[in-house]
């Protein structure tokens, strides 16, 4: 009756005839399980471990990384094995379609064939214990590269080797007539995501061991990291949409926990709330969309089935459109697309490694992943390959996001916020890529972006670690001399992000642009992409220049340190009062000063705890709980002599590894490297859906690179002092000034909205802004909660307490009033009683007489 033996499912009966799934493919559940174990163990027993359970998490993630790498290798190898070993695949046909009209027919054939032969029913429905495996036979599909008119140079069709998927499902529960399964769907997309996520997560874990060494809630932090990773891994490997939702929401929870990790300050908890609330707003779309697809696809949560039916047109197109729009709303929320992007920069309130994780490989790419996963739905719904309108909502939102986020990045002083907007912008690329049909480009960009964005965030963390936990670029400068490793790796990340060849970003960005080019978006989204690339180069130049060039401008003496971190002190002390009876006096200004003196080696960190630790032992667990630190603000005493220092190995090693990846990740799909990425991109539903697969185009590459270089050149020139007569433009020219302010105020998305709603005053932007807010941005977290609270107060005070309650109460009052009236009847005088008696009798008699008299 119970499905407790859930995960112990083994492929019941024979696997598909075409090939045999490798051991890891069949046991892929191990990968998400490891971080779950890490989470549970760390949460409940972490405090008993040395280091608060951090190293347990690191090792679990290391293991997960190993497994997922092995899985990747197995996956890449398997397809070849299947075919080379000569087991004739049940369906191994090569379609060469030339006319796009034929294609749909062909695809249907493929699917039908596949269904007939490739789907062994390994389980009897209703027996939850048994698993169900689907594995589509391998086949070779060849599809026309560009459907949309053969304009591009990539019109030549080329053969793509399709990787079938492997699916293992166990019964989870029954509801209604269907059995909902819990299982894993392994195809190239899932494999590459598993790898990326475990890779980044492992490095983030490692990085955090140092970065949050003395954090008070280190254990919680690592537990959350574990759960977060588990959520993402579960999501990318899930076979059902329900499970996808599960992973999706777990991430939402963990982002809440991580962003709000230092919840003592309301700024942080506000940001956490905002993140959760905004993404949750988008989730409405997910709930609705999944429901539509569930019924549309004949009551199934199975993603593969939904995709198949979306391709074959079994789901009515109107349903598909509704579902696609709904799902895309979820993507807007989760992947921080315009106009729900505002939570993401705020989310920088969390610890930097967590930001790296959120922004590089998990949370924010979940939306993109989801769209990619359900791509056949979107593809059919919006007719992406063959769109008469010339645009669709996905590409549009993506494009807008690229530009507006890119512009915002220019006016940020906080290095993390620049990176945050950069993330938003890059996510815009991915979304736009999906919108223009460059599926491979989008997920490839997702893959490469993970490395260099993680690198940049961790680099920023490293810088901040060295500079008294400031993230303000005005405090930096000239750091290339002090932090060579960080500098070099950061530079690599920057160049990768800029999309300059031959680093990773180039290859993936190029594919997206190529898609836009070949799929008929040459005049619009291709252009947007190039402008975006130029913007990226420019603002990253700004960051690099402000951080690494020039002179160091940060505080240099302990006095200044104390001053700088004074604000942070106030509440720390309050904490210590409450926490575990440790003497708060020990942690204070004197602690910092003494610590600074006592610490002989600038490389050994955490001198700030000198006093406390010397009393209780430097590695005492208790001490690290007490000692007041919140990572970011607590290591303020570290740099001696007034200058920043290079970070220790747990920080630099991840940087170096990521730098290497940022260099090589792009190459794997380079034409000269044999397009190895097709192992992961040429997956069954995508190919079947007829998503075009353009081949490399030199023209596009040159144009995009030129665009990027233009941006870079201008920016470098600017920072070298060439002002082009633009200096002070914002002061001189009203329009430019307004533009600047617009950026500075983040398009007034947050600020104006709050001002208008909360204060109920019509601001200077008056009706236009009000209209904008009311109609366009109703989802923005603050606005909704303010309106809701207002409405709630009204409903509660007026409707509930007055009307509904009032009615009830007045009925009661009426009853007692009547009672009072009747009470007067009994006056106490006996003859009055007699009168009532006689009167009643007489009246009654008369009435009765009259009535009966009439009748008779």
């Amino acid at each position: 009756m119970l499905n407790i033996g859930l995960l112990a499912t083994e492929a019941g009966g024979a696997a598909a005839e075409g090939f045999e799934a490798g051991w890891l493919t069949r046991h892929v559940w191990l990968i998400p399980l490891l971080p779950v174990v890490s989470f549970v163990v760390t949460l409940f027993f972490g405090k008993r471990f040395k280091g608060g359970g951090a190293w347990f998490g690191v090792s679990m993630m290391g293991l997960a990384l190993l497994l997922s790498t092995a899985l990747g290798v197995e996956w890449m190898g398997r397809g070849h094995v299947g075919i080379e070993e000569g087991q004739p695949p049940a369906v191994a046909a090569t379609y060469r379609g030339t006319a796009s009209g034929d294609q749909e027919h062909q695809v249907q054939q493929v699917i039908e064939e596949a269904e007939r032969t490739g789907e062994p029913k390994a389980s009897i429905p209703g027996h939850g214990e048994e698993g169900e495996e689907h594995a589509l036979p391998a086949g070779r599909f060849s599809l026309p590269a560009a459907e949309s008119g053969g304009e591009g140079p990539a019109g030549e069709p080329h053969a793509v080797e399709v990787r079938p998927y492997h699916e293992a499902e166990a019964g989870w529960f029954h509801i209604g007539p269907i059995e909902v399964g819990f299982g894993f769907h392994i195809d190239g997309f899932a494999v590459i995501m598993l790898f990326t996520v475990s890779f980044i997560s492992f490095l983030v874990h490692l990085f955090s061991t140092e970065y949050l060494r003395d954090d008070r809630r280190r254990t919680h932090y690592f537990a959350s990291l574990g759960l977060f990773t588990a959520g993402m891994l579960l999501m990318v490997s899930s076979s059902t949409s329900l499970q996808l939702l599960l992973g999706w929401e777990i991430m939402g929870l963990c982002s809440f926990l991580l962003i709000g990790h230092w919840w003592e300050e309301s700024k942080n908890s506000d940001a956490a709330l905002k993140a959760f609330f905004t993404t949750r707003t988008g989730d409405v779309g997910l709930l609705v969309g999944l429901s539509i697809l569930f019924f549309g696809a004949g009551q199934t949560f199975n993603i593969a089935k939904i995709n198949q039916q979306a391709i074959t047109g079994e789901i009515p197109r109107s349903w598909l459109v509704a579902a696609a729009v709904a799902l895309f709303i979820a993507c807007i929320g989760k992947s921080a697309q315009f106009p729900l992007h505002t939570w993401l920069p705020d989310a920088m309130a969390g610890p930097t490694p967590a930001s790296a994780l959120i922004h590089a490989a998990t949370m924010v790419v979940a939306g993109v992943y989801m769209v990619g996963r359900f791509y056949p739905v979107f593809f059919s719904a919006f007719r992406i390959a063959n769109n008469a309108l010339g645009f669709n909502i996905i590409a549009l939102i993506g494009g807008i996001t690229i530009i507006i986020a890119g512009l915002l990045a220019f006016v940020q002083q906080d290095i993390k916020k620049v990176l945050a907007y950069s993330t938003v912008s890059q996510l815009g690329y991915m979304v736009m890529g999906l919108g223009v049909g460059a599926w491979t480009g989008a997920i490839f960009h997702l893959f490469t972006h993970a490395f260099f964005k993680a690198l940049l965030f961790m680099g920023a963390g490293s810088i901040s670690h060295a500079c008294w936990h400031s993230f303000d670029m005005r405090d930096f400068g000239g750091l290339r001399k002090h932090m060579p490793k960080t500098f070099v790796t950061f530079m690599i990340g920057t160049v990768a992000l800029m999309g300059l060849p031959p680093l990773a970003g180039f290859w993936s960005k190029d594919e997206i642009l190529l898609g836009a080019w070949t799929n008929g978006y040459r005049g619009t989204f291709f252009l947007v992409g190039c402008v975006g690339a130029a913007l990226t180069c420019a603002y990253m130049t700004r960051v690099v220049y402000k951080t690494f060039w020039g002179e160091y401008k940060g505080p240099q003496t302990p006095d200044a340190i104390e001053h700088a971190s004074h604000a942070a002190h106030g509440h720390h002390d309050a904490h210590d009062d409450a926490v575990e009876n440790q003497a708060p006096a020990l942690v204070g200004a004197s602690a910092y000063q003494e610590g600074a003196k006592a610490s002989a080696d600038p490389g050994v960190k955490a001198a700030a705890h000198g006093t406390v630790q010397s009393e209780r032992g430097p590695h005492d667990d208790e001490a690290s709980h007490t000692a007041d630190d919140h990572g970011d603000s607590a290591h303020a005493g570290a740099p001696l002599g007034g200058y920043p220092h290079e970070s220790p190995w747990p920080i630099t090693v991840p940087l170096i590894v990521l730098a290497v990846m940022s260099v090589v990740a792009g190459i794997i799909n380079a034409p000269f490297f044999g397009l190895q990425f097709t192992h992961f991109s040429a997956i069954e539903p995508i190919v079947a859906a007829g998503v075009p697969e353009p081949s490399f185009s030199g023209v596009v590459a040159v144009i995009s690179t030129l665009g990027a270089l233009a941006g870079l050149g201008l920016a470098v020139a600017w920072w070298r002092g060439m002002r082009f007569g633009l200096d002070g433009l914002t002061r001189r020219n009203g329009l430019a000034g307004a533009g600047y302010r617009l950026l500075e105020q983040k398009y007034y998305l947050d600020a104006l909205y709050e001002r208008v709603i909360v204060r109920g005053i019509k601001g200077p932007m008056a009706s236009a802004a009000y209209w904008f807010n009311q109609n366009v941005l109703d989802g923005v977290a603050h606005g909704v909660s303010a309106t809701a609270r207002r409405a709630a107060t009204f409903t509660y005070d007026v409707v509930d307490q007055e009307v509904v309650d009032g009615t009830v109460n007045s009925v009661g009052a009426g009853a007692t009033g009547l009672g009072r009236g009747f009470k007067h009847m009994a006056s106490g005088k006996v003859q009055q009683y007699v009168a009532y008696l006689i009167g009643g009798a007489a009246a009654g008699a008369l009435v009765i007489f009259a009535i009966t008299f009439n009748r008779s």
Partner: protein
Amino acid sequence: MYLNEFLLLSAVLFSCGVYGVLARRNGVLVLMSIELILNAVNINLVAFGAFHGQVDGQVFALFTVAIAAAEVGVGLAIVLLIYRNTRSIDLDQVAQMKG
């Protein structure tokens, strides 16, 4: 037989009794008015008995007479009791309890 005349007489007596009960403040007079009502009933019963040629009506009337005597006896006792306690037989004075 003129039944209607008897009935009319009875009705008039009945009405007089009712009037007395309602209008008189004196307890004893109220008791007497009640006697009037009961006698109206008796006239009815006897008249109907005769009309039907039965003794039933007269038997009932006898019962009524007897019981009326008992009732009035009890009534007088109560009025006396009140008189002893309040030195008044004005029924309007007897109104301590109300509501």
